[in-house]
């Protein structure tokens, strides 16, 4: 029997036994380990619905161990990994491999997203039931858009049997071409041909119609544009089964950052950076519930592939900065931490249909974070745990820091003692 006592949190003392919260309040019991959390607040640990851990196949960018460590640093106890690995995760054995690797590393739980179509080719449905039975929680060709309307429509209908989502990467490649940022005046002035908003929105609109017609569940990941938010809002109101997330960086950065940062490829991702108006719209969507979650889209790429803004790989790392970045911005906007917990914990917990986690309650799994909401810190390059350093937020100053992360009572990250 292993016991742990966290003293003096904002919710009192918390007694944990075998990874389960046993008691909350004023506790004077002894424990194997005692943590003094004076001045800290306790939060349920976070879940990231969209990360790339690159294993198997691209271990030079990231692997399940370094990805897990980054997640623990950021306060996450669980992540959903995207299937665009090599080979892509379109077979049950690969799902099992990822879950087992995460168990070996033993820092975060991985809930793999498997391919929506075989080999991510957009042609034939993957083996949804067999993949789900092995542990997959949703299906996506992330990085590729599922273009074929008939394939997607059948997938949505078929998946109703299991109440599982298709996670769409909404991108019309005829419009995005090889462009590196969103269409805006800033981009045009700075010599960058932009991807129009319609590259995302036209797919989202089409898919909303399919979701409404079929009753199937579609989840839009990394929603980035104003019109996307409006269309999702409309179709949710019409009763379609739609859920959506956006990323921390799309809530903060617009395309004017690119030139200001000397065209650093760390400001290139898909969806691309857009305008201040889009940022406002995303926040509004989060507030009114149109956007359900915030997910990092942690996408590690090695230095050599991030040298040239136009030609470079798309994507940035984000697990270590996700919560602090959004928290720093949210408090400026007068939003409270409960609002963020809905987006980082409660919704993802429901999305994954998990029980006995996501709240600080007796009998719940001790997936917890100790958070210092006043601490100011700088995300210097040497803090990066990921194998790749492609963050646009290097040397940014944040307010609020996770100082301890715990998964099932095990401390996975700590700055205490």
């Amino acid at each position, binding site marked *: 029997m292993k016991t742990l006592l966290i003293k003096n949190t904002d919710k009192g003392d918390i007694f944990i036994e075998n990874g389960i919260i046993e008691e909350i309040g004023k506790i004077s019991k002894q424990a194997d380990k005692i943590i003094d959390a004076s001045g800290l607040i306790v939060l349920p640990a976070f879940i990231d619905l969209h990360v790339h851990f690159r294993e198997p196949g691209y271990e030079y960018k990231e692997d399940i161990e370094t990805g897990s460590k980054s997640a623990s640093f950021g306060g996450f106890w669980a992540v959903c990994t995207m299937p665009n690995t090599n080979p892509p995760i379109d077979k049950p054995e690969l799902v099992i491999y990822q879950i087992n690797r995460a168990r070996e590393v033993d820092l975060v739980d991985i809930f793999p997203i498997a391919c929506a179509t075989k080999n991510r080719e957009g042609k034939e449905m993957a083996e949804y039931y067999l993949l789900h039975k092995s542990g997959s929680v949703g299906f996506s060709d992330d990085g590729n858009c599922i273009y074929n309307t008939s394939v997607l429509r059948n997938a949505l209908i078929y998946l109703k049997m299991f109440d599982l989502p298709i996670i769409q990467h909404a991108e019309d490649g005829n419009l995005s071409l090889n462009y590196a940022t969103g269409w805006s005046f800033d981009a*045009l*002035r700075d010599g960058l041909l932009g991807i129009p908003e319609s590259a995302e929105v036209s797919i989202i609109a089409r898919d909303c119609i399919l979701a409404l017609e079929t009753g199937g569940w579609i989840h839009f990941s990394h929603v980035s544009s104003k019109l996307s938010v409006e269309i999702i809002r409309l179709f949710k109101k019409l009763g379609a089964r739609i859920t959506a997330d956006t990323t921390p960086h799309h809530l903060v950065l617009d395309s004017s950052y690119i030139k200001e940062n000397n065209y650093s490829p760390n400001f290139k991702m898909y969806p691309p950076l857009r305008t201040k108006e889009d940022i406002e719209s995303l926040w509004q969507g989060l507030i009114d519930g149109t956007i359900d979650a915030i997910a990092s889209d942690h996408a590690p790429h090695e230095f050599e592939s991030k040298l040239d803004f136009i030609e470079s790989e798309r994507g940035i790392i984000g697990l270590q900065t996700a919560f602090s970045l959004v928290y720093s911005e949210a408090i400026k906007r007068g939003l409270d931490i409960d609002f963020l917990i809905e987006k980082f914990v409660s919704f993802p917990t429901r999305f994954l249909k998990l029980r006995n986690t996501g709240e600080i309650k007796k009998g719940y799994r001790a997936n917890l974070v100790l958070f210092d909401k006043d601490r100011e810190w700088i995300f210097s390059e040497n803090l990066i745990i990921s194998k790749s350093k492609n963050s646009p937020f290097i040397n940014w100053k944040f307010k609020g820091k996770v100082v301890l992360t715990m998964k099932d009572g095990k401390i996975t990250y700590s700055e205490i003692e």
Partner: protein
Amino acid sequence: MKWDRKYLLSIDDLSVEDIYEIFQTAKSMKEIIKRPIKKVPTLRGKNVCLLFYEPSTRTRMSFENACKFLSIDTISFSRETSSLKKGETFLDTLLNIEKMGVDLFVIRHSSSGILHYIRKFINSKIVNGGDGTNEHPTQALLDGFTILENKNRIESLKITIVGDILHSRVARSNIRLFKKLGAYIVLCGPPTLLPKEFENMGVEISYNLKEAIDNADVIYVLRLQLERQSSNFFPTVREYNELFGIKKDILKYAKKDVIIMHPGPMNRGVEIDSDVADSNYSLILNQVENGVAIRMSILYYMLV
């Protein structure tokens, strides 16, 4: 902002005073070019690397001669003969060449902004010889110099830039330069190649050539990349020429002493007709001549 003389990546690197200083010195440089012995020892012992990742005749030869007239030694590099094919990164190429004793790089590259990004990794000075669809500052300077030479001022002139603004680094640098020097700028081209957002640069936008060149002092014709047709920016070259080609009979809408400019190389009969290109209105060859003088002036300030 005063020019640091380490980088010329954008017209924004220069103040108005810097620009006129460059023009002033270019005047003296032009005089050197006309001498029977076209060489001054000013920058003897300096080494410049011309690094062209995109095809270029004019700009590259212009820089090469500018260097020679100032006694600068040059080494050069083109995509075809590089180790790029073996997969060396652009940055590694720069780091290697820099170690060979280079003081300044003149770089043309197809990626907008790449020089802004890589400069922190190397010590050498850098002149932008054209980066993607972003900027081509030495072209803008030679254009400004050419206008000044002919009109004795740039302030309050009406300059109409015609063509594919969207993909043009020349247009972006020229808009910046002409704005800085107080000209009134009109952009003209098909809407697919001239997004309305350009208005925010403080210019007028027109989709009608006659209106756009009405009372113009300068018509600046951009080169049309013929492959834009296959990307569906316009239906045919023939239709483009009909709508936006500069023809003799349209010049009557402009000022009597209008001047015609083009950065080259021209597609005769597409964006400009021969009877305009070869007319007295045309300063196209003066631009080429001034290009060498302007580049000498820039190299002088950056290397002296």
